[in-house]
């Protein structure tokens, strides 16, 4: 049994979730070559002869004229700071590498000495290459103060065609008044709530402030049965990111008795391979609840729906 309410009338509680998205990013010639050659301790830029501009990192298209660049060039490892800022995550700077006509954004390490706008800096390479912009670890004060270098043609360059990438985004979603109450009642009382629209008299599950069709405030929560009618189903064999059940399982749309909306859930309790014979649209189904001790205040407190046996089967 849960300890009372999942949401609280005294304290706003939240659903904490993480969106975890895997990507395989295609670099294209410019970024792919730049990242590859950082591993060789070479800083690549691209040159547009139309605009007489060398930019670093290189670009597949000139930002001024839109033309593809004429060639990759290799830039010196030294340059001058044109802008910087210090945050609690370190120092970020725009650095005009010698021979470049645009700034490179990178990190500054102040360990070798203070740096301001106009200070000469040099690149420091990471101990191990990871095919990232951080293979160039950072820039530091250039104590040697060598004369500025120049850009020259890069010659043969390698390519990293694809880069794995992961986005991890965390959220604390507010339940709001309707979902909060819905989940509290699911967890504590095995009740399913809907909202009654005063205009069209439809009961909407999950409950909500406005009737979708009428745009009037619903104003009243009402109980909905945990029995309903199977409106649609499909056996899911495909695996995908974010899946909460292991395939094969049955995706089902169920109209709970007393409601006008379709609830998305699953139908189970039998061999999924026999779904086509066992299930039919319009057949009655009923909720199979989890043990009260396992209820967490989500729609998954209903473990699954099962076909209601016909009287002769009972």
């Amino acid at each position, binding site marked *: 049994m849960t300890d009372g309410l999942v949401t609280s009338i005294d304290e706003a509680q939240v659903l904490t979730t993480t*969106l975890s998205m895997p990507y395989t*990013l295609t670099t294209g010639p410019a970024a792919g070559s730049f990242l590859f050659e950082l591993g060789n301790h070479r800083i690549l830029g691209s040159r547009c002869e139309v605009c007489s501009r060398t930019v670093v990192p290189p670009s597949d298209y000139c930002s001024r004229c839109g033309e593809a660049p004429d060639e990759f060039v290799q830039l010196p490892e030294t340059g001058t700071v*044109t802008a910087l800022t210090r945050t609690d995550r370190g120092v970020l700077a725009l650095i005009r590498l010698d021979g470049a006509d645009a700034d490179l*954004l990178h990190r500054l390490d102040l360990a070798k000495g203070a740096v301001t706008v106009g200070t000469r800096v040099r690149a420091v390479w990471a101990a191990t290459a990871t095919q990232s*912009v951080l293979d160039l670890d950072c820039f530091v004060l250039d104590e040697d103060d060598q004369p500025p270098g120049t850009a020259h043609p890069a010659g043969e360059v390698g390519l990293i065609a694809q880069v794995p*990438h992961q986005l991890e*985004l965390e959220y604390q979603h507010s339940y709001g008044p*309707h979902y909060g109450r819905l989940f509290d009642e699911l967890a504590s009382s095995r009740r399913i709530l809907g909202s009654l629209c005063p205009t069209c008299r439809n009961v909407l599950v999950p409950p909500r402030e406005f009737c979708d069709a009428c*745009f009037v405030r619903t104003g009243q929560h009402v109980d909905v049965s945990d029995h309903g009618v199977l409106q649609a189903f499909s056996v899911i064999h495909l695996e995908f990111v974010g899946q909460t059940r292991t395939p094969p399982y049955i995706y089902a749309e169920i109209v709970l008795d007393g409601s006008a909306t379709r609830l998305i859930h699953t139908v189970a309790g039998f061999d999924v391979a026999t779904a086509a014979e066992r299930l039919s649209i319009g057949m009655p189904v009923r909720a199979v609840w989890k043990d009260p001790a396992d209820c967490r205040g989500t729609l998954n407190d209903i473990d699954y729906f099962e076909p209601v046996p016909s009287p002769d089967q009972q």
Partner: protein
Amino acid sequence: MVASAQTVLRDAWSRLQQVDLIGGVVSDVLRGSGLNIADVDVVIDCGSDVLDGRSISNCGFLGAMGAHHKEESRVEEDGLFGAVYATTKVACGSASVALVLAYSKPSESDVSAYYSTLTEPFYQRALGLDQVSTAGLMANQYLTRTDADEEALLRIAERAWSRAAGNPWIEQSPDLGPEDVARSALVADPLRSLQIARPRDGAVAVLLASEPVARRLSDRPVWVTGMGSAMDSHLLSERLPGQLEACQVAAHMAMSRAGLKDASDVDLVEVTASSSATEAMVVEALGLAAVGHGVDCYADGAQVDVNPSGGAVPADPIMATGLVRLHEASARLAGRIGEGQPTRALAHGAGGLGMQNHCVFTLEV
């Protein structure tokens, strides 16, 4: 523009979902407008899927937006860009009444991570670039390339916080005021925390109507006289340091359509900014001050009233900030809020990291 409404901009609307904020503000904008939801032909909504933590999040908001079986379109940009869309629909005659709404609940996610998703993934994201470090870099460029000094940037922020203190639509923090700006933490030098746009939760909605409908509803409608938008380069290093060229282009587009010489032809402007430095750069791009002298616009007795609401530094409902500016400006022209009798106004919105995109509206009564 026949009606507009906003929610209070708060640290966190922790007891409401986005959909509840939207339903509330749409209900509010219709109330007393003389229109009901059946009169609305098109709904344009603006928000961020990344901030919402769900893809195509408008799908879940349809009912609360009053968009059931209506023409509805999402603009994943600041609400002012949505207003361009809606105004165009009305102006070309394919809608008589258009509803634009924008909303934001940055309290539900990590704003730094959100801005990180806007960065170029190969060259920038791994470096930890976000809205705070971008604001710091742009402020550093502004101070390096112009005559402005850190004092000027403090004055602009202090002015913003002092105007915000008089704005009933901004939830007040008793422990934060203009006197705290100079002693707030240095978070991205030269900027202190109270000089950087402070994310807020909130929603805003605007109703636009064709001329016959507007004249029927009001004897003093607010007319959209010009619109403009422009985008700058994605990489900060490809933009002109210390200035906002795209803002200048957007403003020129709007003002030339409106027949205005420059922004000094209007009585009030409401602008968006990512920091007190970019706010200076915006007013300079609008032509209200020479480059490096944006702070002059905030002197007592200045000809044009800049950000009577306080602007975006004290209250930035990301994705809704520009549409809040339009709401503020039009409500003042209509005489619903504020004093005096302004007759011409300009509203500015921006989007992207470091204000890559700019949008400008000119209004008149």
